[in-house]
């Protein structure tokens, strides 16, 4: 029996009710971004449930300890303001856990009562609660604006705002990777190293959320961008912001305030987006790309050519975060696949336009919705099915009901493992995506083919 048995084929417009959202709230994004700072304890300024939920979801996705503190508002704090709670929290955090940095994000609760983080930090600093050399930074992340992607972007912008330009340009390039897996951040660093560009990647969760098991627990693992490095981002020769939604705000701020020219690019998923990333990287840094990079690229092209026959004309439904969807749709179209349904919960008019542009003049019509939900997408699928689903774990109900293979990609993935270790960005990541897609499609074919046409060699 169907799991989502109550989802009707007939589509009625809904104005007030969101069903099966394709997004979640700002603070979790801010928490993830903050974990990409070295020695940082994220702190949730609100009641303790938010923090518990965010930690649980991030833990289930990354399979790593997610340490984060909370202001633990009760009714009193909700009425009289959370100043006292946060000052006390800052004192306790530095005394008990001794982080280098506390990155505070607000919640819908503290935003609604109007707590001002800057003011509270000043108070904590003046009353000696912030030890010498330690940093507090904060981001306003009201849950009723934007989505988890917005929260990520806001915290990354706060990280950029730590920049203290010295007036002397360095040879470094800032790269803001956006909300990608720790393995993707590692891959971006590897690519930059191959190209020979010295980058400051922020945030950088590589080494933090893919830490080894050694019998010792470090609340603050070795990875992450340091505050010292963030302070120097104002001296960089340029910033590459990967993803308009996740990374552009921080990059534009550095451009406007510190005169670090920025380029906003798509996240480097797939061939063309990776090409553009590497091309801009070498231009900004003034280096030439070594043959080894072209070699990897050629391998991806080779695999596309080998697999094209299976991908051609396949219809795909895809949901998730705007920056990821844009690159992925471009990649799918480049394989002659058809991303026919594209849904994000994150608002943004540009998104729909961009997806339509990618799919323009192609032999299919794309249905795209920002501020959409998975219920609507499922209804579209019920009206006209697809061959493949690409999105987070919550798609598994649709996958089972409609008997469609699901590529787990995006956030959160709660029921499969390894995604924190294997990149999907860059040419290497492209190989992995192709392999996964092909396996899904052919496993399905092997399962469904009748005896007469079941073949050993496909």
């Amino acid at each position, binding site marked *: 029996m169907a799991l989502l048995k109550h989802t009707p084929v007939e589509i009625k417009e809904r104005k007030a009710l969101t069903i099966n959202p394709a997004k979640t709230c700002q603070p979790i994004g801010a928490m993830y971004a903050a974990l990409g700072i070295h020695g940082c304890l994220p702190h949730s300024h609100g009641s303790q449930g938010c923090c*518990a939920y965010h930690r649980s*979801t991030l833990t289930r996705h990354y399979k790593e300890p997610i340490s984060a503190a909370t202001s633990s508002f009760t009714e009193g704090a909700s009425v009289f303001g959370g100043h006292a709670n946060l000052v006390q929290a800052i004192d306790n955090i530095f005394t008990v856990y001794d982080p280098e940095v506390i990155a505070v994000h607000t919640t819908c609760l503290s935003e609604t009562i109007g707590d001002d983080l800057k003011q509270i930090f000043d108070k904590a600093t003046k009353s000696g609660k912030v030890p010498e050399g330690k940093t507090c930074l904060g981001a306003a992340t009201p849950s009723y604006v934007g989505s988890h992607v917005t929260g990520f972007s806001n915290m990354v912008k706060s990280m950029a705002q730590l920049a203290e330009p010295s007036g002397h340009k360095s040879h470094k390039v800032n790269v803001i990777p956006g909300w990608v897996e720790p393995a993707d951040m590692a891959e971006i660093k590897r690519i930059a190293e191959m190209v020979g560009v010295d980058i400051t990647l922020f945030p950088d969760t590589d080494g933090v959320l893919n830490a080894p098991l*050694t019998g010792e627990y470090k609340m603050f693992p070795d990875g992450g961008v340091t505050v010292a490095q963030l302070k120097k981002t104002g001296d960089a020769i340029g910033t590459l912001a990967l993803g308009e939604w996740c990374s552009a705000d921080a990059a534009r701020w550095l451009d406007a305030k510190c005169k670090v020219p920025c380029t906003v690019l798509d996240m480097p998923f797939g061939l063309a987006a990776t090409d553009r990333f590497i091309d801009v990287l070498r231009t900004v840094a003034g280096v030439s790309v070594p043959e080894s990079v072209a070699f990897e690229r050629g391998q991806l092209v080779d695999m596309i050519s080998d697999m094209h026959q299976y991908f051609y004309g396949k219809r795909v439904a895809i949901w998730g975060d705007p920056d990821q969807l844009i690159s992925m749709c471009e990649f799918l179209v480049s394989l002659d696949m058809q991303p026919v349904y594209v849904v994000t919960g994150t608002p943004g008019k540009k998104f729909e336009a961009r997806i339509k542009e990618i799919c323009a003049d192609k032999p299919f019509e794309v249905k795209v919705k920002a501020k959409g939900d998975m219920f609507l997408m499922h209804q579209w699928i019920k009206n006209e099915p697809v061959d493949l689903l690409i999105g987070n774990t919550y798609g598994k109900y649709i996958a089972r009901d409609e008997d469609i293979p699901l590529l787990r990609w995006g956030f959160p993935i709660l029921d499969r493992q390894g995604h924190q270790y294997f990149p999907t960005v860059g040419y290497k990541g492209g190989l992995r995506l192709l392999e996964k897609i092909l396996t899904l499609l052919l496993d399905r074919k092997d399962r469904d083919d009748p005896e007469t046409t079941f073949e050993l060699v496909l």
Partner: protein
Amino acid sequence: MAKTKKVVQLMPTDIKEELLKKYPPKVARKRAKQIMINEATEAEAPPEILANVRTIPGIITMRGCTYAGCKGVIMGPTRDILNITHGPIGCGFYSWLTRRNQTDPGPDGENYMPYCFSTDMQDQDIIFGGEKKLAAAIQEAYDIFHPKGICVFATCPVGLIGDDIHAVSKKMKEKFGDCNVFAFSCEGYKGVSQSAGHHIANNQVFSHLVGENEEAKEGKYKINLLGEYNIGGDGFEIDRIFKKCGITNISTFSGNSSYDQFASAQHADLDCVMCHRSINYVADMLETKYGIPWIKVNFIGAESTAKSLRKIAEYFGDKELIDRVEEVIAEEMPEVKAMAEQVRPHTEGKTAMLFVGGSRAHHYQDLFAEMGMKTLSAGYEFAHRDDYEGRHVIPELKPDADSRNIEEITVEADEKLYNPRKTPEELKALEDAGYEFKHYAGLNEQMDKGTLVIDDLNQYEADKLVELLKPDIFCAGIKEKFSIQKLGVPMKQLHSYDSGGPYAGFKGAINFYKEIDRLVTSKVWSYMKAPWQESPELTATFVWE
């Protein structure tokens, strides 16, 4: 195992001191009252613990919030009530299928658990109020799904802006006529933990739902099972056993539950309470209003299951049931015993720590005991003092600001439906024979002298305890899992099991023995160090020499 055992025996007082050392003085003073050396020599008086008090800001807590307790824990496992979270998207999203509540959609197939419904409040809703949007959302849900019931849950900002969710629900209920709509003021900031949310949920279910269905229910021995949430299928296993014994479970609060089960709860003749923390007050209300007595049961552990079944049979006092229960126990036990014997060589003498929920840290000790394992330290995430010290302390508990804002409902005997199941003489006869109604002993009594009972344990203390005492297994929730495992100690989730289950009943016991055996014998914990890290001295020899 490469894991190094502590050679020096640490005294409980030393451990307590070690846990408190790092805190600022004020925090240390408070925590000292929440860390109790069980029946230690600290004081002459029986040990008292500080519980159900606010979490200290900045301390990495294991706790969640009132909304989580209300929507996630209590209403989460109810299949045919459509739950709408009124608030920004996050709360609804995080409570979407994350408790591993399993359900049987039944012949009607009505099941909304795989869906997440939210009003997804935007900034304009916060500024201008969200009541209109809520009413429209309820209407849309009704138009698409036509459920029997719609429940509305308030999140933090809803309480602040003052949306009257109860008035909106009432209005919609009247408008529909064939759909019960009611709401929960379970804003996350109310109370100090999930416990407040359980209370709010139970009160509303009791007020708006219980007793609605007056149609008689078939069954000779009719019970309700309170405080069982069907995580990983626990409730399925308990129901299997009941069925085998000939006991009719009218309703489970709220594992694998349905609208009609709640609505028919007044037809049971006995209430059996599993997780007393989350629901003992509902048992009291059912008794006052309908005359149903209640007992504490525990279906975690095979021996406990047998004991609970016997207790139920003794209540009904019918030879047919007493004999049937004995037959079932005799049938089920050999397989359990065989598995226990199989794992015992691996588990005997091993140690555990349990910091789970509001009863589980208690219940699961029975299973560990069946494997010959000792619990070194335990405590609850959201307990009250009675969970530690026993039900008799309830009159001593003083309400504070945080408990006062949780509504207490007053219940009186129902004019029509009140029906005492046993005469005062019959009840007295049972009690004189040692039968305990309305009673639970609490965690302290179960634990050995000198063990540490800790309320509201936090991440810092958890890691410290594990470092100091090196237990063979640690049990808590998902947030704690990986920091404990980084220390080289296996961690089993016991809130929402990380995988597997059921662990309740006889089959559950077998599953649990196997799982613990797997965890404590897994070779992975011996891989922590590479050979060159174990003995880093360089010697100029070849390996084959």
